[in-house]
């Protein structure tokens, strides 16, 4: 584990990360409710419990830097500067959504913010990040790309292909593995040989392990990897140990016949909630007051409330929209 005696974030940066985490949590808590009540069209995979990773990594990124994300992508989207309102509208399937209702929860993207998309294909975003890192290398302006992915994705062969190409070409890329112990309903250790970090090590790049529930630790580790990438020194791998408190997706309690993880395990991780722990730490250090923290909750409650209200009021995308979006220069026609 990377120790927190690495140079850590300044108080301002800590406050910014707390904001990010609270925003993600507020948005997703509402999504959880609305999903369980059947108010959302598709399913949602929630990031609750993993917020410190997105917050700690994206704190280092500029709009020009690129990220690719996963089916569990709300946290990355928001941490990288995506609009909460546009995301909420997207998940409601509205024309005002950040993807005009075409993508939904699994595909939130904001190219103007360098968010090249959540992705419904496990490990599907990785090569896109590698391509973006190649572009950044060619640009020569110190840009960096980050591929977020899970422990399950690390068993897709493309993981190794991307590690290899990034290493051979010395690309400014960070492989950000969020090891939350499960892929869907399968415990990672039952389908994973060896340690994931050793896979990356085989390609000769710097590899870090970090407590994914500690925003400061993630921040400090990401700082090293981002700096290295910006300096043209090549890729890094970071593995953050964390946990999906809500499980794979919101529908799972209804869909599955029996639980697949011990109740105590869930409780244990609830006890290590990255936000509660961070509030405690920052309050103790005098970086925020309890009132500040409560103020954030209120602020984001309003943000969420308004985002949902706006999303509900927003128009549906037109039925012709999809056909007009497939290509830049023509509408797909049907030859009956």
């Amino acid at each position, binding site marked *: 584990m990377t120790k927190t005696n690495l140079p850590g974030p300044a108080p301002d940066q800590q406050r910014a990360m707390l904001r990010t985490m609270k925003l993600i949590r507020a948005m997703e808590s509402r999504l959880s409710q609305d999903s369980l009540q059947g108010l959302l069209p598709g399913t949602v995979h929630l990031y609750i419990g993993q917020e410190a990773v997105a917050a700690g990594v994206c704190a280092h990124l500029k709009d020009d830097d690129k990220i690719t994300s996963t089916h569990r992508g709300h946290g990355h989207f928001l941490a990288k500067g995506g609009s909460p309102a546009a995301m909420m509208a*997207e998940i409601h399937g509205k024309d005002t959504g950040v993807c005009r*209702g075409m*993508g939904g*929860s699994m595909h939130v993207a904001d190219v103007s913010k360098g968010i090249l998309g959540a992705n419904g*294909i*496990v490990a599907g975003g990785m090569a896109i990040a590698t391509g973006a890192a190649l572009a950044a290398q060619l640009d020569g302006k110190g840009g960096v790309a980050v591929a977020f992915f899970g422990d399950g994705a690390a068993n897709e062969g493309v993981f190794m292909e991307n590690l290899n190409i990034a290493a051979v070409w010395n690309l400014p890329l960070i492989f950000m593995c969020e090891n939350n112990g499960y892929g869907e309903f399968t415990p990672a250790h039952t389908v994973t040989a060896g340690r994931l970090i050793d896979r990356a090590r085989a390609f000769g790049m710097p590899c870090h392990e970090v407590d994914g529930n500690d925003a400061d630790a993630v921040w400090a580790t990401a700082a090293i990897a981002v700096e290295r990438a910006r300096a043209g020194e090549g890729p890094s791998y970071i593995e953050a140990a964390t946990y999906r408190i809500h499980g794979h997706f919101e529908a799972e309690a209804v869909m599955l016949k029996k639980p697949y993880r011990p109740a105590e395990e869930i409780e244990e991780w609830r006890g290590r909630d990255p936000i509660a722990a961070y509030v405690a730490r920052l309050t103790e250090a005098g970086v925020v007051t309890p009132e500040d923290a409560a103020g954030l909750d209120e602020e984001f409650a309003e943000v969420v409330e308004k985002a949902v209200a706006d999303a509900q009021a927003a128009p*549906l995308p037109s039925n012709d929209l999809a*056909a007009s979006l497939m290509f830049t220069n023509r509408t797909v026609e049907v030859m009956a």
Partner: protein
Amino acid sequence: MKKRYAAAINEALHEEMERDERVILFGEDVEASMFGDTAGLLDRFGRRRVRNTPISEQTLAGMAVGAAAAGYRPVLHLMFGNFVYTAMDAIGNQMARIRLMTGGQMTLPLTVIAVYGGGRSSAAQHSDAPHPVLMNLGGINVAMPANPADGKGLLKAAIRDDNPCFFLEAGGRGAEMGEVPDGEHIVPFGAASVLREGKDATLVAIGTMVKHARVAADNLAAAGIEVDLIDPRTMVPLDYATILASVEKTGRLVVVDEARDSCSAASQICAVVAGQAFSALKAGPARVTVPDVSLPYAPVAEKSLIPNPQRIEARVRALIG
């Protein structure tokens, strides 16, 4: 007895694994079984024969080839139809080719299950209907059961078949009920079922589309238009004979397919019928398909792109003129 679609499929798996210990099952989360189709199999048959796998589709499909070549009857659950693309090298370059390339030495009694189709706001990476791609590969049988009875009967036939068979489950239909014959029930590949008879037009509907076509046919009947409604049940082999015989009688053809239009199964059937039954045709054969787009997430927009009873009915009426 009436059974749910997923339950009928599950029953087929239970029966075939019971009957033949060389039948094995593997795939991502076959234990938890999100769709219910593989539920209970691990408890019944144990971790030797029923295996949760890593997320490695390309290799899983290749392993099915290897295990089959070595004498087993593997069943691979690939989860979603779009993951056919993820595993496509093993499917298109190995599974479909290797029997020919070895001069017929290699026999591959394997089955791949995948759930296809849209309509549930799953967006473009979880909604494709990949059967046209599989049909074009050659060398692979493809079943698309539209109801619980065919689900059970075709899966049992697939598992017993000595050739690679894809078994494409209709997405979102797992809970639908239907009569399933008691006792041993096998539906042979290559035999269409005629769901309704009529003289005015031939309506062919594939997989998920059979349900909508039934509604359309009922509505048309109420207006005095009687159609032959044909469910081909398997796309490879495809029972052209039944379709051609019907068109010889009716002179009109509409094919409903949830695939994108270009190079769809609908196009294939229309092309063959236009070529072989031209003189019987009173109008050009028509397709009701998804345009060449990715399915969107927004429910209304998505539904507007997938064939529905209204579009089917309108198309038949337009043909009759």
